[in-house]
């Protein structure tokens, strides 16, 4: 699983990407975020307010209920501000 972070999620994480094996018991994005928050203070800080986190799976915008698999590219980021 390739994880990508953008905007203040990236800053709080202190990195813009990482590879990780899909944690046990993680079926969807919500599970993944919960699992990540247990990995350390920077994850807790970045993913603290789940309502402010947006997600894309394989470069498609989706929501917390989206399924995730070990070969997915999963991006977590703040609301987009294009234009």
């Amino acid at each position, binding site marked *: 699983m390739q994880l990508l972070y953008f905007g203040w999620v990236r800053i709080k994480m202190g990195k813009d990407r990482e590879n990780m094996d899909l944690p046990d018991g993680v079926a969807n994005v919500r599970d993944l975020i919960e699992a990540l928050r247990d990995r350390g203070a920077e994850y807790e800080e970045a993913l603290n307010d789940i309502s402010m986190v947006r997600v894309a799976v394989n470069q498609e*915008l989706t929501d917390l209920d989206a399924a995730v698999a070990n070969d997915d590219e999963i991006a977590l980021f703040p609301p987009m501000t*294009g234009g």
Partner: protein
Amino acid sequence: MIKVQTEDFDIGVETARLTDGNNSVGGLACFVGLVRDIAGDDSIETMTLEHYPGMTERQLEKIEAEARERWNLLDTLIIHRYGTLAPGDRIVMVAATSEHRQDALESCHFLIDWLKTKAPFWKLEATSHGKHWVEARAEDRISEERWVIGGQNPE
């Protein structure tokens, strides 16, 4: 056409590309967004745009395809810059050509409204009081939803 780039663009050159040699064009509408020198009470020194390469192009192509499906268009263009920009710099250009003006005008408005909330860019402003991330605005979400048809809002 979609272009995601660090370089500046020339509005005259880009609009000419959309109209030259196609005499069925009756109207060209375009919108250009620029870096302002003020954010709230702070003066802006630079704005750094970060984006999600790959997803950005996909999202812009989807927005462009949606415009072409909804309106009768001859051509469309989205140029979006990333990297560090200064006040007065151009950030984004959207344009559409059509036989009749309403198609070009409405689709141009649509393109920029959807791009605001659906294109994966994030903006870091460096001001006299430090750096901060530009927050998504509630008005932009309202402008986005104005174009949603029958509950269909393909992200």
